[in-house]
């Protein structure tokens, strides 16, 4: 298993390099002085350009600048944030757990709802239930996430006043779990609904595919009850494609998380990115691109490992 993880990890390294190239190109290819990427024109205390020039090689040709930047990144130096006046790494590191909490909660919510519904839809194929949830799935993937968020805030936070409209907490002097949870509910529901819709369809088709397999017929011929056939024999096989699909869900989960964070003023990476956009805080923007990609790759790796664990057919070395 360790060798499997290592192999997958090594595979990801060229990918990360490509991503750094894309990141650097996207930000630095725009016309303008590269210096502006690193010097905040509005900072009260101006950093000596010479120091920056030395550290980031700002007068050198494009490719060399990229390599120097890459070298710094690999050492963990993502530069200084204009807006925050602190190392980018520090700012991002603080925001990271909040994004993880939101994303993870939404992922769990999504799966907890989608898996049973997907199973039932497959078993009761073409029933009223199936059509109902199929329609719900369509709605779920068609609804703009931010608009769903707005409507939820309108209904649940403003009209009904069940939940707060924004932020992560209102109690600051100690950790109040209830307070935190109240703040987590709406963002999680909004983010989870988007992924839930796709998951339901996917689980349904995975189950349908499993139910029509020959080994299900064998199980029935052995005298197994329908429950046993569905929940033990078919489901266990349907979970395999679901495990891989988690890896694919992660990029869109993070995309959605960014939008939800901005809407609900949730202090995660997405919100930081948005602020960085308005303040033209390029070091943060570049750092975010790299960090998010890294998270996606790690998530993908975790999903691969999960799949290898549940499917005995995967060769691990």
């Amino acid at each position, binding site marked *: 298993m360790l060798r499997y993880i290592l192999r997958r990890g090594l595979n990801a390294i060229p990918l990360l390099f490509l991503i750094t190239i894309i990141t650097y190109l996207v930000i630095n290819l725009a016309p303008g002085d590269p210096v502006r990427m690193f010097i905040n024109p509005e900072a009260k205390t101006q950093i000596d350009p010479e120091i920056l020039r030395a550290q980031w090689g700002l007068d050198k040709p494009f490719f060399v600048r990229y390599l120097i930047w890459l070298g710094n990144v690999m050492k963990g130096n993502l530069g200084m944030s204009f807006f925050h006046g602190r190392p980018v790494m520090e700012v991002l590191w603080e925001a990271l757990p909040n994004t993880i909490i939101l994303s993870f909660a939404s992922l769990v919510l999504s799966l907890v709802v989608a898996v049973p519904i997907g199973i039932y839809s497959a078993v009761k194929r073409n029933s009223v239930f199936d059509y109902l949830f199929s329609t719900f799935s*369509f709605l779920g993937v068609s609804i703009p996430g931010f608009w769903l968020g707005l409507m939820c805030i309108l209904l649940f936070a403003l009209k009904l006043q069940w939940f707060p409209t924004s932020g992560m907490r209102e109690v600051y002097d100690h950790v109040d779990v209830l307070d935190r949870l109240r703040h987590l509910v709406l963002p999680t529901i909004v983010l989870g609904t988007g992924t839930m819709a796709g998951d339901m369809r996917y689980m349904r088709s995975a189950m349908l595919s499993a139910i029509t397999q020959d080994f299900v017929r064998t199980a029935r011929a052995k005298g197994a009850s329908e429950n046993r056939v569905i929940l033990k024999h078919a489901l266990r096989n349907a979970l395999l494609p679901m495990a891989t699909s988690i890896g694919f869900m992660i990029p869109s989960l*993070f995309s959605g998380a*960014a939008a939800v964070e901005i809407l609900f003023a949730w202090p995660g990476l997405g919100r930081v990115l948005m602020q960085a*956009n308005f303040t033209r805080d390029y070091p943060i923007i570049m750092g975010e*691109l790299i960090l998010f990609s890294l998270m996606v790759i790690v998530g993908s790796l975790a999903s691969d490992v999960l799949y290898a664990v549940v499917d005995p057919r995967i060769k691990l070395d």
Partner: protein
Amino acid sequence: MALQPDPRSSSASVAESFDHSDTTHKRFKAFWKKFRKNKLAVAGLCTLLFLSATAILAPVLSPYDPAGDANDILFVDQAPSLHSTRQAGMDGVERTYPPNLFGRDELGRDVFSRCLHAGRISLSIGLISAGIAVVIGTIVGSLAGYFGGLLDDLLMRFVDAIRAIPTFILLIAIMSTWGGTAVTVMIILGLTSWTGTSRYVRAEFLSIKEREYVLAAECSGVSHARIISRHILPNAIGPIIVSATMGIAGAILSESSLSFFGLGVQPPTASWGNMLMAAQDINTMINAPWKAIFPGLLILVTVLSFNFVGDGLRDTFDPKLKD
């Protein structure tokens, strides 16, 4: 109707001398018959035709000027109504004001008229960026799938790299350095969303490439370009069209997200997304919720329709893919 190959022509053109013109017509009719059975898809298609018509005819259908006029401050945040009103304007002159079906916004502008005009922007951005994405995706996918080997490896790595960056994050980053106008939004959306299409196309090419009629064409010495355009692409067209339809849906969602957060189409040009920007203010939401509801509803209905149509197309092209 030349169904018999000309025995005098060289073998290279044998594969091509079949006249497809009337069979194409027949295939289209069979296709349409099958598609028609999916009621949701047909409903979606009708909705889209209707919305496109309203978008094209927006100037004609709008009861008000979407940019507003001087009298608007009298009607800030007015609720939707089905009746005309007679009222004196800022200049004291009495006028008849047509019904505000969707109400008015914080600047007194008619939301309905703005929605119509915004539809033009949102729909065209959706169509064009999806178009760009499909073209790029098809080219990349076909090259990778057809030639295989090192080219395939490199291209797919590139695709993986782009896919690893969450799209919205990438879009925010790009917009911060490049963004601004409707045109840049179109181009950038197109440049970031082609990876899905490329994978479908590549998969189709990989499978079709091994089929006998392609091998036969290769043996006859038909050039690569001809093989791709004449033999493979027509069969791969199914996933491409489905991909394009879903792509439009996705592009509309992306554009509205970007515009909502101030990164896409900038005011005063209206898109459904940026019309919702004002709704971020809590006071607005409490006092004038229609500003938030209607543009969003339009986005939902449009995207839903594209999804129904795309799903219907997918079923019609290959029902095996469904269940």
